Protein backbone atom coordinates (compact mmCIF):
# COMPACT_ATOMS: atom_id res chain seq x y z
CA UNK A 1 0.00 0.00 0.00
CA UNK A 2 1.23 3.46 -0.85
CA UNK A 3 2.24 5.44 2.23
CA UNK A 4 1.43 9.11 2.54
CA UNK A 5 3.25 11.92 4.31
CA UNK A 6 1.56 15.18 5.30
CA UNK A 7 2.52 18.09 7.53
CA UNK A 8 1.27 17.56 11.06
CA UNK A 9 -0.18 21.06 11.37
CA UNK A 10 -0.72 24.32 9.52
CA UNK A 11 -1.95 27.75 10.48
CA UNK A 12 -3.75 30.27 8.31
CA UNK A 13 -5.97 33.34 8.50
CA UNK A 14 -9.47 33.95 7.31
CA UNK A 15 -9.69 34.79 3.62
CA UNK A 16 -6.38 33.20 2.68
CA UNK A 17 -5.88 30.29 0.33
CA UNK A 18 -4.52 27.19 2.02
CA UNK A 19 -2.53 24.50 0.25
CA UNK A 20 -1.86 21.19 1.96
CA UNK A 21 0.59 18.91 0.20
CA UNK A 22 0.69 15.15 0.55
CA UNK A 23 3.63 12.99 -0.57
CA UNK A 24 3.01 9.49 -1.91
CA UNK A 25 6.23 8.43 -3.60
CA UNK A 26 5.24 4.80 -4.19
CA UNK A 27 1.79 5.41 -5.58
CA UNK A 28 0.68 2.58 -7.89
CA UNK A 29 -0.63 2.97 -11.41
CA UNK A 30 -4.26 2.36 -10.50
CA UNK A 31 -4.27 4.30 -7.23
CA UNK A 32 -6.60 7.23 -6.67
CA UNK A 33 -5.91 10.10 -4.28
CA UNK A 34 -8.67 10.96 -1.83
CA UNK A 35 -8.98 13.70 0.77
CA UNK A 36 -11.17 13.78 3.86
CA UNK A 37 -12.00 16.49 6.39
CA UNK A 38 -12.73 15.84 10.04
CA UNK A 39 -14.19 18.22 12.60
CA UNK A 40 -13.85 17.53 16.33
CA UNK A 41 -16.20 14.85 17.63
CA UNK A 42 -17.38 13.91 14.13
CA UNK A 43 -16.50 11.23 11.62
CA UNK A 44 -14.38 12.18 8.59
CA UNK A 45 -16.16 13.58 5.57
CA UNK A 46 -15.13 13.01 1.96
CA UNK A 47 -13.93 16.21 0.25
CA UNK A 48 -12.44 15.33 -3.11
CA UNK A 49 -10.68 12.63 -5.08
CA UNK A 50 -8.60 12.56 -8.24
CA UNK A 51 -6.32 10.50 -10.43
CA UNK A 52 -4.30 13.08 -12.35
CA UNK A 53 -4.05 16.77 -13.25
CA UNK A 54 -6.66 18.92 -11.54
CA UNK A 55 -10.04 18.29 -9.98
CA UNK A 56 -12.30 21.02 -8.62
CA UNK A 57 -15.59 20.92 -6.76
CA UNK A 58 -17.56 23.36 -4.67
CA UNK A 59 -15.35 22.79 -1.63
CA UNK A 60 -11.77 22.46 -2.87
CA UNK A 61 -9.35 21.82 -5.69
CA UNK A 62 -6.92 18.95 -5.98
CA UNK A 63 -3.72 19.36 -7.97
CA UNK A 64 -1.80 16.26 -9.04
CA UNK A 65 1.48 16.60 -10.98
CA UNK A 66 2.34 14.34 -13.88
CA UNK A 67 4.48 11.96 -11.81
CA UNK A 68 1.65 11.61 -9.24
CA UNK A 69 4.14 11.34 -6.38
CA UNK A 70 2.44 14.14 -4.53
CA UNK A 71 -0.84 16.01 -4.47
CA UNK A 72 -2.00 19.36 -3.14
CA UNK A 73 -5.38 20.11 -1.62
CA UNK A 74 -6.26 23.75 -2.13
CA UNK A 75 -8.90 25.47 0.00
CA UNK A 76 -9.80 28.91 -1.38
CA UNK A 77 -10.47 31.77 1.02
CA UNK A 78 -10.68 29.77 4.21
CA UNK A 79 -12.95 30.70 7.08
CA UNK A 80 -12.90 29.78 10.75
CA UNK A 81 -15.19 26.84 9.97
CA UNK A 82 -12.46 25.25 7.86
CA UNK A 83 -10.49 24.53 11.04
CA UNK A 84 -10.28 20.75 10.94
CA UNK A 85 -8.00 17.79 10.34
CA UNK A 86 -7.40 16.90 6.70
CA UNK A 87 -6.41 13.39 5.62
CA UNK A 88 -4.82 12.27 2.37
CA UNK A 89 -5.39 8.66 1.28
CA UNK A 90 -4.04 6.72 -1.66
CA UNK A 91 -5.30 3.44 -3.05
CA UNK A 92 -7.22 1.52 -5.66
CA UNK A 93 -10.73 0.39 -4.84
CA UNK A 94 -11.08 -2.00 -7.81
CA UNK A 95 -12.46 -5.33 -6.69
CA UNK A 96 -13.03 -4.04 -3.17
CA UNK A 97 -9.46 -4.77 -2.17
CA UNK A 98 -8.48 -1.26 -1.20
CA UNK A 99 -7.98 -0.85 2.51
CA UNK A 100 -8.11 2.88 3.29
CA UNK A 101 -5.35 4.02 5.64
CA UNK A 102 -5.88 7.42 7.22
CA UNK A 103 -2.70 8.21 9.10
CA UNK A 104 -2.47 11.25 11.37
CA UNK A 105 -3.61 13.91 8.94
CA UNK A 106 -2.89 17.65 8.90
CA UNK A 107 -4.45 19.81 11.59
CA UNK A 108 -5.41 23.14 10.03
CA UNK A 109 -6.15 26.06 12.33
CA UNK A 110 -7.70 29.16 10.79
CA UNK A 111 -7.26 32.34 12.80
CA UNK A 112 -9.49 35.44 12.69
Amino acid at each position, binding site marked *: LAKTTQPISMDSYEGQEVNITCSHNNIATND*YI*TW*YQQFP*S*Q*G*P*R*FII*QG*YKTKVTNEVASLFIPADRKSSTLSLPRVSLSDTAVY*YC*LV*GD*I*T*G*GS*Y*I*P*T*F*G*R*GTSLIVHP
Partner: protein
Amino acid sequence: DVKVTQSSRYLVKRTGEKVFLECVQDMDHENMFWYRQDPGLGLRLIYFSYDVKMKEKGDIPEGYSVSREKKERFSLILESASTNQTSMYLCASRIPTSGNHEQYFGPGTRLTVT
Protein backbone atom coordinates in the same frame (compact mmCIF):
# COMPACT_ATOMS: atom_id res chain seq x y z
CA ASP B 1 -28.58 10.97 1.87
CA VAL B 2 -26.45 8.07 2.97
CA LYS B 3 -26.83 7.48 6.63
CA VAL B 4 -24.53 5.57 8.95
CA THR B 5 -25.71 5.34 12.52
CA GLN B 6 -23.97 4.06 15.61
CA SER B 7 -25.85 2.74 18.59
CA SER B 8 -24.44 5.15 21.16
CA ARG B 9 -22.59 8.47 21.14
CA TYR B 10 -21.17 7.93 24.62
CA LEU B 11 -20.65 4.71 26.51
CA VAL B 12 -19.09 3.95 29.89
CA LYS B 13 -18.18 0.37 30.74
CA ARG B 14 -16.21 -1.39 33.43
CA THR B 15 -13.04 -3.38 32.94
CA GLY B 16 -13.83 -6.97 32.00
CA GLU B 17 -17.29 -6.27 30.61
CA LYS B 18 -18.30 -7.51 27.17
CA VAL B 19 -19.12 -4.52 25.00
CA PHE B 20 -21.10 -4.37 21.76
CA LEU B 21 -20.85 -1.42 19.41
CA GLU B 22 -23.43 -1.46 16.66
CA CYS B 23 -23.28 0.21 13.27
CA VAL B 24 -26.07 0.36 10.73
CA GLN B 25 -26.02 1.81 7.20
CA ASP B 26 -29.06 2.33 5.02
CA MET B 27 -27.53 2.38 1.52
CA ASP B 28 -26.92 -1.30 0.80
CA HIS B 29 -23.14 -0.84 0.90
CA GLU B 30 -21.05 -3.98 0.64
CA ASN B 31 -18.02 -2.78 2.55
CA MET B 32 -18.04 -1.75 6.19
CA PHE B 33 -15.23 -0.69 8.53
CA TRP B 34 -14.45 -0.15 12.18
CA TYR B 35 -11.77 2.36 13.20
CA ARG B 36 -10.59 3.73 16.49
CA GLN B 37 -9.22 7.21 16.88
CA ASP B 38 -6.87 8.37 19.61
CA PRO B 39 -5.21 11.76 20.05
CA GLY B 40 -2.11 12.08 17.91
CA LEU B 41 -2.61 8.69 16.23
CA GLY B 42 -5.20 9.43 13.58
CA LEU B 43 -7.67 6.73 12.56
CA ARG B 44 -6.54 3.13 12.86
CA LEU B 45 -8.39 0.28 11.19
CA ILE B 46 -9.57 -2.48 13.53
CA TYR B 47 -11.62 -4.74 11.24
CA PHE B 48 -13.41 -4.49 7.94
CA SER B 49 -15.95 -6.53 6.06
CA TYR B 50 -16.23 -6.88 2.30
CA ASP B 51 -19.71 -8.32 2.49
CA VAL B 52 -22.10 -10.30 4.68
CA LYS B 53 -20.38 -12.89 6.87
CA MET B 54 -16.97 -11.78 5.60
CA LYS B 55 -14.41 -10.12 7.82
CA GLU B 56 -10.77 -9.20 7.66
CA LYS B 57 -8.37 -7.98 10.31
CA GLY B 58 -7.12 -4.44 10.06
CA ASP B 59 -4.06 -2.95 11.70
CA ILE B 60 -5.07 -3.38 15.35
CA PRO B 61 -7.51 -6.30 15.77
CA GLU B 62 -6.21 -7.55 19.11
CA GLY B 63 -8.87 -7.51 21.80
CA TYR B 64 -11.71 -7.06 19.28
CA SER B 65 -13.99 -9.24 17.19
CA VAL B 66 -16.73 -8.39 14.70
CA SER B 67 -19.96 -9.77 13.37
CA ARG B 68 -21.74 -9.14 10.08
CA GLU B 69 -24.85 -11.28 9.81
CA LYS B 70 -26.80 -8.77 7.73
CA LYS B 71 -25.56 -6.44 5.04
CA GLU B 72 -26.65 -3.27 6.81
CA ARG B 73 -25.21 -4.07 10.23
CA PHE B 74 -21.62 -4.41 11.39
CA SER B 75 -20.95 -5.00 15.06
CA LEU B 76 -17.71 -4.51 16.96
CA ILE B 77 -17.28 -6.63 20.07
CA LEU B 78 -14.89 -6.09 22.94
CA GLU B 79 -14.80 -9.51 24.58
CA SER B 80 -13.35 -8.22 27.84
CA ALA B 81 -13.01 -4.45 27.92
CA SER B 82 -9.78 -2.96 29.18
CA THR B 83 -8.83 0.62 30.01
CA ASN B 84 -6.56 0.83 26.95
CA GLN B 85 -9.65 0.41 24.80
CA THR B 86 -10.96 3.77 25.91
CA SER B 87 -11.23 5.59 22.61
CA MET B 88 -13.45 7.07 19.92
CA TYR B 89 -14.83 4.33 17.67
CA LEU B 90 -15.89 5.16 14.14
CA CYS B 91 -17.83 3.03 11.71
CA ALA B 92 -17.84 3.58 7.95
CA SER B 93 -19.31 2.04 4.83
CA ARG B 94 -18.79 2.30 1.08
CA ILE B 95 -19.68 0.81 -2.27
CA PRO B 96 -16.54 -0.69 -3.85
CA THR B 97 -17.02 0.98 -7.20
CA SER B 98 -14.00 1.55 -9.39
CA GLY B 99 -13.03 5.21 -9.32
CA ASN B 100 -15.19 6.08 -6.33
CA HIS B 101 -13.41 5.92 -3.00
CA GLU B 102 -15.89 7.74 -0.84
CA GLN B 103 -16.48 6.29 2.59
CA TYR B 104 -19.42 7.37 4.70
CA PHE B 105 -18.80 7.67 8.41
CA GLY B 106 -21.05 7.48 11.42
CA PRO B 107 -20.92 10.07 14.22
CA GLY B 108 -18.69 7.93 16.41
CA THR B 109 -19.01 6.29 19.82
CA ARG B 110 -16.83 7.61 22.61
CA LEU B 111 -16.17 4.62 24.84
CA THR B 112 -14.72 4.99 28.32
CA VAL B 113 -13.59 1.88 30.16
CA THR B 114 -13.10 2.38 33.89
